C-alpha cells in the first residue's frame, strides 16, 4: 500500500492505494476527473525526492506527493 498526498491548492485528502509503479498511480489518479485536470501541471516527489520516471518501482509505505505550479517570493 502506498500513500498519495496532494500539496498546496489541490483541495484533496490523501489517498491510499496499491501500486507497483508511478504508472499505476497515474492510471488511478486519471480516473478522478477533478484530479486529472491538475496532472499535466503537477510535478511528483517520491518520499520527498523529486522524480521524473514513470517506471520507478514503488514499495509498501512509499509516499507520493503531487506538487502543483509554484510561486514563491
Amino acid at each position, binding site marked *: 500500500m502506498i500513500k498519495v498526498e496532494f500539496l498546496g491548492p489541490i483541495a484533496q485528502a490523501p489517498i491510499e492505494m496499491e501500486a507497483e509503479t*508511478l504508472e499505476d498511480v497515474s492510471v488511478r489518479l486519471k480516473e478522478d476527473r477533478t484530479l486529472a485536470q491538475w496532472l499535466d*501541471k*503537477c510535478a*511528483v516527489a517520491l518520499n520527498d*525526492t*523529486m522524480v521524473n*520516471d514513470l517506471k520507478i518501482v514503488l514499495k509498501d509505505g512509499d509516499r507520493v506527493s503531487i506538487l502543483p505550479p*509554484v510561486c*514563491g*517570493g
Partner: protein
Amino acid sequence: MDLYKGPLDTKEIFGRWLDEEVRSNYGAYISFVGTIRAEDGIEALSFDIYEPVLQTWFDRWQEKAKKLGAIVKMAHSLGDVPVHKSSYLSAVFSPKRRVALEMIDAFVEDFKANAPIWKYDVKKGKRIYASDRSTPMDGAGLLA
C-alpha cells in the same frame, strides 16, 4: 534557511546574516528582498510551503555555492503577509563580487520556478490560489 509565520523582520534578518559572516572574510554580500505590492485589491498574500522538498532544493544550491567559495541564505514567510511587508529574503556571500552577482540572479530565478511554495491572494479575508502567476515545476506532467 529559515521559515517564519507571517511577515519577515528584514532588518533583523539581514543584520543577523551580516553578523554571522562578519569574520568569514567574504568580500561581497548581495541581498534580495521580495515585498508584497498593493495591487488588484489584495489585502495580503498567503503562502503554503512543503518544507522537506524546499530544504532539499536549498541544500543543492548551498552545495553549488560552496564549490565557488560562496554561501546562500534564505528566509520565507508562511501564512499571511500584508501589503508593503516582505515575504522573501535571500542573499549570497562570496569572496569577490562576480560570483555573488551571478548567483543571486540564478538562485532567485530557480527559486521562483522550483521552490515548492504556493501563493494565494487574500481578498476580503478569502484565500485565492494565484494560478495565473504560478509556474509548473521541472518535470511537471509526469502523471498526465
